[in-house]
């Protein structure tokens, strides 16, 4: 029934057309604030961002300062805990809360930098495939297939072992591996746009390919790409943690959450909190980003399907 999908531009009630128009930003804000998942993710992420970036404001401890006399102090809710180190200390006597806050910076930085790199690679490939089609599309589709066939963890570990483990290695390796979803999404969305009337119109008036791609295609595929970026950021953070856990990611004494879990592994039977605390932090961060991404997808969807 055509009447059931009455849009905002249709007359409100009865015979008199009362067009209701809101600015895109106002519409976004209204939808976003009504989306519980989006709001939960935004709040969670905001809290983690503030805590990590403003780490010195929230703890006086140095995350690298060792104190062998204060090793493996349990958190404050244990009998032997104290407010001095309210999340306890690790095997070298370093304050766990301080390491957690500074470790958040590493996760966020790796997530953002990786997504920037992989986003550029994937979007460029995907847009080229979708826009030019034909042989270009075939070749890029083939490249995507090859990339998907490579086992990510294994290749990342092998490369890290070969070129040397460091923060930069992790970023570059993950950036070079995680572009596939960007490419797939950019390809399919560009295909839709490339056949749209306004692109045909732009071609007809003689716009250059570059101008069309940057002024017509990219702005129109941005929303789905932002959604992919959030989900891939979560993916990258989880992979960094896994690589660091296996000893081929971020190196000590940097406070990566994956590394904290790895370092705490041998003490987990008697002091389970050494792995629980950084694990919960990881879950919270990734959950926040995923909720935000899923919410963003719903909120920026062209029309609310109810």
């Amino acid at each position, binding site marked *: *029934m*055509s*009447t*059931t999908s*009455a849009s*905002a531009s*249709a*007359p*409100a*009630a*009865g*015979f008199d057309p009362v067009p209701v128009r809101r600015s895109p930003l106002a519409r976004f804000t209204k939808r976003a604030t009504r989306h519980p998942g989006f709001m939960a993710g935004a709040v969670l992420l905001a809290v983690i961002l503030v805590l990590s970036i403003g780490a010195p404001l929230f703890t006086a401890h140095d995350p690298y300062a060792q104190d062998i006399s204060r090793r493996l102090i349990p958190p404050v809710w244990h009998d032997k805990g104290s407010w001095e180190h309210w999340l306890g200390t690790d095997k070298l006597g370093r304050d766990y809360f301080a390491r957690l806050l500074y470790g958040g910076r590493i996760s966020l930085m790796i997530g953002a930098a990786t997504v920037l790199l992989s986003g550029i690679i994937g979007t460029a490939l995907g847009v080229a495939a979708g826009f030019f089609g034909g042989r270009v599309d075939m070749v890029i589709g083939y490249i995507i297939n090859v990339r998907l066939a490579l086992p990510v963890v294994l290749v990342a570990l092998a490369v890290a072992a070969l070129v040397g483990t460091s923060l930069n290695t992790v970023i570059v390796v993950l950036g070079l591996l995680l572009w596939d979803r960007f490419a797939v999404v950019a390809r399919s969305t560009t295909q839709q746009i490339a056949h749209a009337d306004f692109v045909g119109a732009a071609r007809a008036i003689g716009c250059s390919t570059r101008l069309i791609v940057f002024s017509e295609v990219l702005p129109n595929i941005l929303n789905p790409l932002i959604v992919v970026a959030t989900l891939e950021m979560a993916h990258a953070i989880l992979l960094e943690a896994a690589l660091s856990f296996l000893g081929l990611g971020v190196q000590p004494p940097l406070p990566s959450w994956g590394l904290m879990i790895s370092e705490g592994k041998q003490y987990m039977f008697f002091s389970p909190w050494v792995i629980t605390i950084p694990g919960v932090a990881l879950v919270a961060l990734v959950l926040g980003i995923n909720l935000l991404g899923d919410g963003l997808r719903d909120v920026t969807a062209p029309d*609310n399907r*109810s």
Partner: protein
Amino acid sequence: MPLLDVDHLTIEIPTEAGLLHAVNGVSFTLERGETLAIVGESGSGKSLTSLALMDLLPSRAVRKARSMRFDGIDLMAAGRREMEDLRGDRMAMIFQEPMTSLNPAYTVGDQLTEALRRHRPVSRAEARDRAVHLLERVGITAAASRLGQYPHQLSGGLRQRVMIAMGLMCEPDLIIADEPTTALDVTIQAQILMLLRDIQREFGMGLILVTHDLGVVARVATKVAVMYAGRLIETGPVEAVFGAPSHPYTQGLLRAIPVPGRTRPGEPLGTIPGQVPNLIGPLAGCAFRNRCDRATEACAAAIPERDLGPGHRMACVLDPVAVPA
């Protein structure tokens, strides 16, 4: 006792923008052996009306009625299981889209026999025989070999014939066909319509034909109900409504469509200017008054139904005038 007696059927759909009054107080009756055509443009509520009879409305749509009886059975009071027992057995439905109305994963034979075996304690072989018999009856050649085919292997016209055969499996008392020919080629349309008419006569069923095609109505129906903006604005025997259309909308509709024997060659067809009103929120008075060239202030008040002849009613305050030319 009429086969079907609908009194004041109302369908409301809650939307983000407000309550959509999709169908508003529609009443009609149907006897066995009769064909009722429900006509109207898209969005007039004719399809929802037919779905409401089968209790197949989308889940968020709210169905209300003073009473709705099928062969004496109160459909408004019938429970879910009771309706499931009626559907496919005593009342069947044929849909607009033969291309998508059959399950792509199962063979034609499976989908046909399933309809019978759900309601009758018959063996697989008996169900198969009936399926072959009905496929032949609806004009499908090599019927037995079709049973093993998948829907995608059949043309649109064949699929619609399969749908009709499926509706007939339990020999229902009522068949509802919702725009059964809209998606088909013009040449096929006539064949399917004649098939429906012949079968309706042969089996003595009641047939409800939902359509926007007045040519179809003239050829097949015995009764017609014209819907506009969710309301029934004129109803009666086909000869009465077509011979003396009384509601300004019906008159406009008939002017807009060439009817064999009525429209002279070369004569320009009429149009109805303006737009259908939005049905979200309350709408008082005649829904057609913004497009009606004879509208007066009285049209903004509640519109009573008027009897114009045996079974011929309309919802308009104006005295009917003869159709010009």
